[in-house]
Structure formats: structure tokens, C-alpha cells
């Protein structure tokens, strides 16, 4: 992994961006993201009638003087969010090195935008039904860059399996954004993973990364197509085809259809979906697509 994206320039450009979370999230600790609840900031939000047990220091005495009733002055609350980035580390993602780099760059970009705003970040690597969290919980730029240095060591092999997500113990609830990065070129049920995120009241971004050859195959002729995640020649995922120009066109149509299916599912679950090809510059994805999705501001 060369890590061509992880340059100072790359991170400098990300300095200007911040992740945009819905206010329905709550989080646990104080941070920079305003939420729907009242808190201890200095920004006024509303009044409410005093109830027994309330802190009397928050009573607005000026209002009492005018109305003769006790009202509390309420202030907005800002919390720290937890960005969980799930990276599909199967062989198909790593099949094209540029695709793997692209996927990791996206993950790192999300992570950097999070730590820059004092949010927590964790990277979860999914492979062969297991997940690993090699960098732990990252807070602050120092620990983030330390983790980025190790990103190059991530290897891609085995089959895609999203079932490991449900086994993660520290999933939290209603506390941030879950980003699922994969090529989704699998029969494995990724929908369950999305549903699980939603169950945990997470904001969800489903990000599909596809290589150039996967978007537009350049090969033609008669092929025994062997799946890179499979066991070899006898694998049921293999397919024997005579690839003509018409077949290539059918492939492109079918891929678009597949993307639409994913998108439809995501919309039905109020999750964001982003499909990117490695031929699109990553800046364009971050500045345009993520902004369009209102995930970045």
C-alpha cells in the first residue's frame, strides 16, 4: 500500500471541513456538535417553568419580576460524537490496489474530519466473519496520525462477511455516524448490517467503492470468470461467459441496477448512500458528493 493520498496537502484540505450530524444524536461527552437537548453552554435556547428539583441558579429572576412566576433559562448542548468506520477488507476490495487505497483514503478522510472536531474515531476491519479494531478508540490528531501510519499495514484477503458487525461490543447507541465502506460485490447480506446500525440509532453512510475495471470491464472474449474470493475453479460463484460488447453493456446496466437497489434500500432506511469509482478524484467525492448528502459542511 503506497498511501498516495495521505499527504499534508490532503489533510490540509480536510481542515476546512466538518462532519454534519443530525441534532437527534445525543452522544455522551461534551463536544462540538449541537444536539436537541438542553445543556450547559452559554447559548440561550428557551424558557421552561420551574419544577421542583431544578437548579435554582438557572431561574430567570427578571422574568419572575415581571410575571411573578418561576421560569428556568435553558441553554443548548453540544456533544462529542463517535465515528465508527467499517472497512470491508475482503479480497475483492484489495483485488485492485488503487481501489483498496481509495477505500482507505475515504476512511481516513472521515476519521480526520472527526478528530479535527474533537470527535472519537474507531476503525473496524471486516474479514472472513471477524472484525478487528487495530487502532482502538482514536481521540485527537496525534493518536489519529499514529494510526494513519499503520493503515498501510492493512491487508485485504478472504471473503466479505458483514455478520461480524453484530458481534462488536462497543457499539454505543445514538452517538454518532457509522460508515460502511465496501464494494458490495458479494452475496453476503450487507442489509442486516445497515439495519443493525439503525437499531443502534446511528447515522449511517453506506459507501461503495468500485475499481475502474469493475465499472467498465475492458476484457472481451470467452472466459471462465473465477471469483477472487472463491476457492478456485470449482467455486459456485464462478461463471463461464462469452463476453461481447453487448454483454459488457448488459454488465454496465446490471451494475447500475445493483447500485439503484442499494440506494433504494438505503433511502428506505434513511441511510445515506454513496457509490464512487476510483477514477473520480477523492476531493470531488468529499467536496461535492458528501456535501450534497449533507454529511459534510
Amino acid at each position, binding site marked *: 500500500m503506497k498511501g498516495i493520498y495521505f499527504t499534508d496537502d490532503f489533510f490540509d484540505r480536510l481542515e476546512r471541513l466538518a462532519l454534519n450530524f443530525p441534532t437527534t444524536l445525543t452522544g455522551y461527552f461534551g463536544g462540538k456538535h449541537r444536539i436537541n437537548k438542553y445543556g450547559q453552554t452559554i447559548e440561550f435556547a428557551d424558557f421552561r417553568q420551574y419544577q421542583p428539583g431544578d437548579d435554582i441558579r438557572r431561574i430567570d429572576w427578571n422574568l419572575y419580576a415581571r410575571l411573578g412566576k418561576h421560569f428556568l433559562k435553558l441553554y443548548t448542548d453540544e456533544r462529542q460524537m463517535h465515528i465508527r468506520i467499517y472497512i470491508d477488507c475482503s*479480497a*475483492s*476490495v484489495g*483485488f*485492485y490496489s488503487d481501489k483498496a487505497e481509495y477505500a482507505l483514503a475515504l476512511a481516513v478522510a472521515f476519521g480526520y474530519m472527526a478528530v479535527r472536531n474533537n470527535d472519537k474515531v474507531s476503525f473496524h476491519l471486516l474479514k472472513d466473519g471477524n472484525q478487528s479494531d487495530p487502532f482502538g478508540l482514536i481521540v485527537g490528531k496525534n493518536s489519529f496520525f499514529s494510526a494513519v501510519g499503520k493503515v498501510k499495514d492493512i491487508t485485504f484477503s478472504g471473503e466479505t462477511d458483514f455478520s461480524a458487525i453484530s458481534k462488536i461490543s462497543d457499539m454505543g447507541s445514538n452517538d454518532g455516524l457509522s460508515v460502511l465502506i465496501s*464494494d458490495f*460485490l*458479494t*452475496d453476503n447480506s450487507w442489509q442486516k448490517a445497515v439495519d443493525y446500525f439503525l437499531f443502534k440509532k446511528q447515522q449511517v453512510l453506506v459507501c461503495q467503492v468500485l*475499481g475502474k*475495471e*469493475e465499472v467498465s*470491464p475492458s*476484457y472481451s*472474449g*470467452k*472466459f*471462465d*470468470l*473465477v*471469483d*477472487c*474470493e*472463491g476457492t478456485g*475453479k470449482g467455486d459456485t*460463484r*464462478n*461463471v*463461464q*461467459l*462469452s463476453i461481447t460488447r453487448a*454483454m459488457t453493456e*448488459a*454488465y454496465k446496466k*446490471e*451494475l447500475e*441496477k*445493483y447500485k439503484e437497489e442499494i440506494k433504494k434500500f438505503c433511502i428506505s432506511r434513511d441511510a445515506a448512500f454513496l457509490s464512487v469509482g476510483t477514477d473520480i478524484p477523492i476531493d470531488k467525492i468529499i467536496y461535492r458528493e458528501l456535501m450534497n448528502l449533507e454529511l459534510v459542511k
Partner: protein
Amino acid sequence: MILRWLLPIGFVGLLAIAILLVIYLLRPQYREKRISATVVWKRVVLHTKKQRLMLTNIFIFLVQALVLAIIAVGFAEPRLYSKKQISPDSEYVVILDASASMRAKSSASGDSRFERAVVNATDKIKDFFSKAESGAVSVIIADSNPSYLFSNLKKDDEKEIYSRLSSAECSLEEGHLDDAITLAGKHLEENPYAKILFYTDTQFDNLGTAVEVINISDKEYEQNIAILGCTVGKIDNQYAFEIVLGAYGNVTRRCNVSVDITGADNGEGKKNFHLEVPVNFAVNENSQSSEQIQRVTVMATNENYGGQPDWFFDVYDETKISIPNLNDSIPDDDQFYVYGGIRDTIKVEYWSNDANSFWQLGFNNLAVNMNKSRDILFREIYQEQGMKAENQGFDFYIFEHSIPSEVLQAGLPTDGVVLLADPDNTLDSANIGLSFNQTVKIPATACVSGEYHQLLQYMEPSKIHLTQYSKITVKDDSFKPVIFIDGNPALFVKDTPSSKMIVLPFSINMSDFYGEQFQIFLYNLVNYFMPITLDKFDFELGEKTQFNCKGELIEIEHNGNTQKFVDFPSEFSFDDVGTYTFTTTFGLVKKDEVRRAYVHVATSESNLFATSDFRINLSSKELSEEDKGEDFFIWFAVLSLILMVLEWYLQFKYIL
């Protein structure tokens, strides 16, 4: 030779198998490729398969429906009809018999059968056009090579029809009526309502309902006496002419047959003879048949007919046989010429300084075998009687052991074939490109064949064993060795336009050559160098004959027209009545040999009231099965079979 496919479908089937084999051999070879997007490709395949499956189902249904429809239609016996078949009485086909017998004239009206047929046919065609305005008429002239006078002409062409009919001519040849009827039958294949009118003088039993035979002969006023042929033989060393005469029709009369022999030569002078032979014919209504054949033998020595009993002749120029003042229906067969009084004679000269009887016996045997076609004159030179060898005037010169000094002095003969048997050193003096080397004695050894030569036809050199032969040095390449003994030539042949020579460098006495192989050799020798020009001297009109040539050129002359032939044997067709002269030019001495042949009207045409046993049934097509048109049942069966196979294949794919 024409190649026809009796079962073209079988051939197509075989081709289909071959195509399947090619497809099997060229079946796609798949390359292995690892990719990450097999999921998408599988979705593509699934989607395509779904679409294809739907199409296949529709197609299977269509094929099944089509098979049922084809079987149903097939059992309804579909047939192809042409437009002509729709309108009855739309076509007339007239056959005019144009054989020589149709030239017979009626003594009452003075017109010939053919003329009457033309008039009658014209009337019929006029009548036909008055009834069927859109009809078509074809007329076939049935001569030796039946062809259309015109074909499918309509009312608009009436003028042309009558003009062509009036200009039609009757031939002198034998008519091939069967071919003419077959030609007319083709009209029936296209138009079952076609009516065939057949004008002829021959009695046909039954040609079918589609053919109306109109016998144009007039038995009451037609009669014919004909000279059918003449064979020449010798009785008591005198020529005898056996004349075959035929009388047809109502003939009860006496007539004289004239025999005019021109140029009868007894070796001392030439003379002409005129002989008259009376003949009685009695063919009338009471006779069992309407024909009478008589044979009359005439000899020039018969004084009853005007001959001279004491004047014998060897050859004659020509003999004309005729029946004067006959006035019968066909005058063309009232005369006949006989040529060939000069029989081919092969002259052989034999000289030997140690004579044996092998050659004379061999040629005598050959003369017996060739008796019918030619004579052989064998002249042996007896030196003790003071005879000298000649070097001209013979066809074959055989010099055995030595070449006679008088011949060496005058030069070897150039007007015939020279055969040198067992030559000695006198060979060198002959200056012919051969020189004597030495005589070699060997134990009995069989000869072997060299380059094939026609002289060796039917011969087996391995059956010839020699105990002695002479080694000959060859300086002239035109001497070709054709038999070898111990690697040395045992028979040379030289065959050039200016010189024809055979050299046998061994003694017959010192071999077992005399016998079967010797006789075959002599037969080949005569037939190769002196082939007979014609094997007979009278031919029927239209007859073809093969002829050969002793020399290099034959000119055939008839009525002032000459044709030249240089490749032999060749074929010649006699297409006119009269005398044909064959003049052979010999390259050896530039002398000519003349042979004449007489061509006459076919004897069968003299029979005015012949009947035919020709069997063909051209029945009215509307009654026949064929009238239903071309049957397509087999094609429907084949088509339904193909569709059934296709349906099976589609089902098979579907199950898979």
C-alpha cells in the same frame, strides 16, 4: 454422363452431420480470468437467461404449432399447379412424321403423305384457334433428330404458323418417332390438357388417350417396290450379286431388275455388262401380309439374263442395280450401287538365304482369318530359280538373315514395310542407322516388354524364349526397341511417314516364337501398318461408321464437297443419299487408294405400311395421378422432421 441425385435430402443430411462435426471441433475455448465482479456477471447471466427462457418458450410453442400445421397441410396433399393447367383445351402439339416413308405419293392424288399431313394439320390448327383463342400450338418435325418447327405460338402468330408449316420438308432419313413423342410428352407434364396430334404412316397400337394418331397412309393408292440391299459373293470364282427386293402395298405385277456392271476387268481388258432379271410380285388384299420379300441372285455369266458365260473378271468399278419404269410411291429406293469389287490385297515379299516355312504358314493362317475383309498375296523369292527380290510393289518386304544384294544395290524398298528378320552383317551395308555387332548364344531365356507399342497388342513377350540373338548397335533414334532379351533389344520398330521398318534380331529357328505369339504378331503387323479403310460399302442414310487409314490422309468426297481427315481411326456420319469416295494418300510412295461407299434410304422406310411396337402411354393427364401437380408431401415431411428436431433441441436446452 450426367450425375443425378436420387436422394438429395440424404446428401443434405450428410452435410448437416459434417457441419455438426465442424461445430463440435470449433467449440469455444474458454480462458480463465480472476475478477472481483462475478456477482454482477452472474446477475447479467440470470437476467439474460430469464429473457431467453421467455423467448425460448414462445419459440417452442410456435414450432409445435408449425409442426402440427405442416402435418395437417401435408396430409391434405398439397400440389403445385401451373397456370396452363387451369384452362382445358389450351394447347395443341402436332407431330409430323418426317421419315422417308412419308414421301410416298398416292397414285390417285399425286401428293405425298407428308404434304397431306401438313394440309390436314393446318386445317386442324385453324379449327383449334377458332375455338380456343388463347391457345398455343407447337409443331414437332419427327425426323432422325426430332425438333420443334415452332413452339407455343398463339393466334396472333397464325400467319407465321401456316407459313412455317407450308415450308416444312420431309427428310430421307429414318424418323425417331419415339423421341418425338417423348418431346411432346413434356407438354403434358406442364399442361395435362394438352392435345397431341400425331400424323404418321406407321401403325401404332396405343399411345394413350392424350395422343390422337392420324394415319395418313392411303393403302388403296400407295405401293412400293424397293431394292433393300445387295450382297456380293463369289460362286465358282465368279461374282454373284444377291439382290434383296421388297414389295409393299397392293402390288401384283411383273418388273425387271437391271444390273449394270461397269469396268469389269479380267486382267486383259475391261468390259461393261447389262443384265435384266424379271421378277414377279403378288401382294394384294388376299395376301397374309402387305409385304413380300424376294431374293434374286444375278451372275454376269448367266446368259439367261444377258451375261457372257465364258468371261470371268476379277474386279469391277461399280454395279448399279435398278428397277426401271416402276412408277411406285417411293422412287428413292429404286436403285442401288455396289462398290468394293476391289478387295484389299496385302502383298508380301519374302526372301531368305536360308528359307523356312514359318512366314508363309503364318501369312496363310492370317489369310484364312481375314478372308472376309482382305486377301493376302505371299510371294517367296526362290534364288535357285533365278528369281530376284523386288524393292517396290509390295506392302511388306521380309528379308531373313541377309539382305539380298540386288536390294542393297537398288536401295531398301520405300513403298512398304520392311521387316528384317535375324539380320547379319549385310545390315551395315543397308545404311539404315543399324549395324550388326555379334551373335550371342544363351540358354533359353524369356523376352521382356519394353515401351508399349500397338504391335504388341495381345502379345506376351514373356512367352517368347530365345537361345540366340544378335547384338545390334543403334545409331538412328527413330528405331524404338519394344522387346528385350537379356537387356538387349529383341524387336525394333521404326514408324515414320517416310520409312516403316521392323527388325527382329533373332532367328525364329532358334526360338519358340513360331506359334500363338507369332500369329498375333503377324495379325498386329497387318492391322497396324495396313488397316482396312471401310469394312462395308453400303450404308443407310444417317448411319455412322468408323474408318481407318493405311496412310496419313483420307479425303471423303460427296457431291463435289470434300472433307479431310488426318487422325485415325475416325468416325463419319452419312447424311446424304449417294456415293461417297474415300481417297487414301500413302506417305511412302505418294500413291492413292480409292474406296467408294453407297448411301441409301433406310430399308425400314421402304415399308409403306409398317407397324410399330413402340410402347409409350401418354394418357390424358386429367385422369392421371400426375395431373394433380407436383407432390410436396416429401418436402412437408422433411420440414416437419426438421422442426421436430429443433423443438427437441429447444426442450433439451430448457431442461438443462
